[in-house]
């Protein structure tokens, strides 16, 4: 089963994304801050990560940068899911090494499509 790590400090979003992905047959690891995201990513080597940008301890951007320097995780697709919708925020996300960038409010269906597309690209 493909494992996806989701990190968001908003319990509503975390649960919605968790449920939507589980419903589609993915194994989901849901965490609520950047520190846990790094720990679980190193431990479980997920196939994809969905990260909020503004989180406690480490932001989604910092987690992305951390992943890109880790030899085991540098190729893991990362989707940033954030309320930051300015052009420079998107640029910063991609510059850090994110695979995709989605802004909140978000469509769970669209997120699922993007997850499938990102996983398809890495196969």
């Amino acid at each position: 089963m493909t494992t996806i790590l989701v990190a968001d400090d908003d319990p509503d979003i975390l649960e919605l994304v968790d449920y939507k992905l589980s419903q589609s047959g993915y194994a989901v690891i849901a965490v609520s801050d950047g520190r846990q995201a790094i720990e679980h990513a190193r431990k479980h080597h997920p196939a994809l990560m969905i990260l909020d940008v503004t989180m406690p301890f480490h932001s989604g951007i910092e987690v992305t940068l951390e992943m890109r320097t880790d030899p085991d995780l540098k190729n893991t697709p990362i989707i940033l899911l954030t309320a930051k919708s300015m052009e420079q925020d998107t640029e910063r996300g991609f510059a850090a090494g994110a695979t995709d960038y989605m802004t909140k409010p978000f469509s769970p269906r669209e997120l699922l499509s993007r997850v499938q597309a990102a996983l398809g690209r890495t196969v």
Partner: protein
Amino acid sequence: MRLALVVSVLLLLISIFAMLVTTVIIRLVRTKTEARSAVQEAKLRGLLVRFLSEDLSLFELQELKRIDSSQFDEISEAMLSKVKGRAKDILVSFLYSRGAIDKAIERTRKLGCLGRCKAAAFLGNVGIPEAREPLESMLRDRRQDVRTLAIRCLGQLGSPESVPALLSAVDDHRRPVPFGAVLVALMRIGSQGKGSVKAGLEFGGTRCRAVTAEILGMEGSTEDTTVLISLLENDPSLEVKLRSARALGRIGSPKAIRPLSECLESHKPTALRIVTCGALAAIGDRDTVQEIITLLNDEDYQVARAAAKAASQMGPAGIEQLNLIAASNSRGAAFAKEALARLAAKAPSAS
């Protein structure tokens, strides 16, 4: 005497003990209530998530007794601002079925300011056409913070039909609203509302015409150059002229160069001459460089300074002229040097 003292001390100790016991009991009850509430919230959120993921139908959800709580409405309303697309559509239809939208419309007329603000935010998030009228009524609310929130929510709703109400609100001197809030709301409504925005020039007051000029400039369409030139030349308000000049600079049409150049004349207001320097720099026509450079020796030091800054933004032609002035002994040398220094500080260092 001694007995009375002992009794008093005992009574005091008993009262302290009773107070401690009461505090502990209150804390325990509160902790238990909070824990129960958190468990209930998690259960309700789970139900809502299943519903939004289309794993639970509206009928099945309505059958559940647990959802007959205000807590469920609160969770649903909070979720509304976090999702879009199909999930939002089904959430709105659910809230509709529960009468939450009618209740929010009713709340917009309530006495409490917080309640009215919450209702406005909810209606803005719902984003249905029925929300427009109550939000427009809130533009006449007695409190400015409520009026400002209503403006933001109308922008979120994005209906071009609310443009006349927003333009009237910006002109209402008895119930003032922030200019920037109206501007942002009109920007969010976008080009669909442009016809109504331009119509505001016919009936609107000073602030309405100013906001119109600003919006036309932000949209940047060259077809609005004529309207803006007319405002620049004929409007009685300096604020409208300033915003028109800036808007013409943003649009960048060469047609605006002559009317803008006329605004640089020495008898024109200083503020207009300063803004016009920036507008001409934004258009960036080489032929206007000399005109701008001449202003470096203007008697009004603010205009001279603005002209130097403008010249520094006009590419090699402007910079070359600035260097010549900087090397001279003229009055404008100091302004030219300042503009060149600022330009050098901004440039990425060569390494």
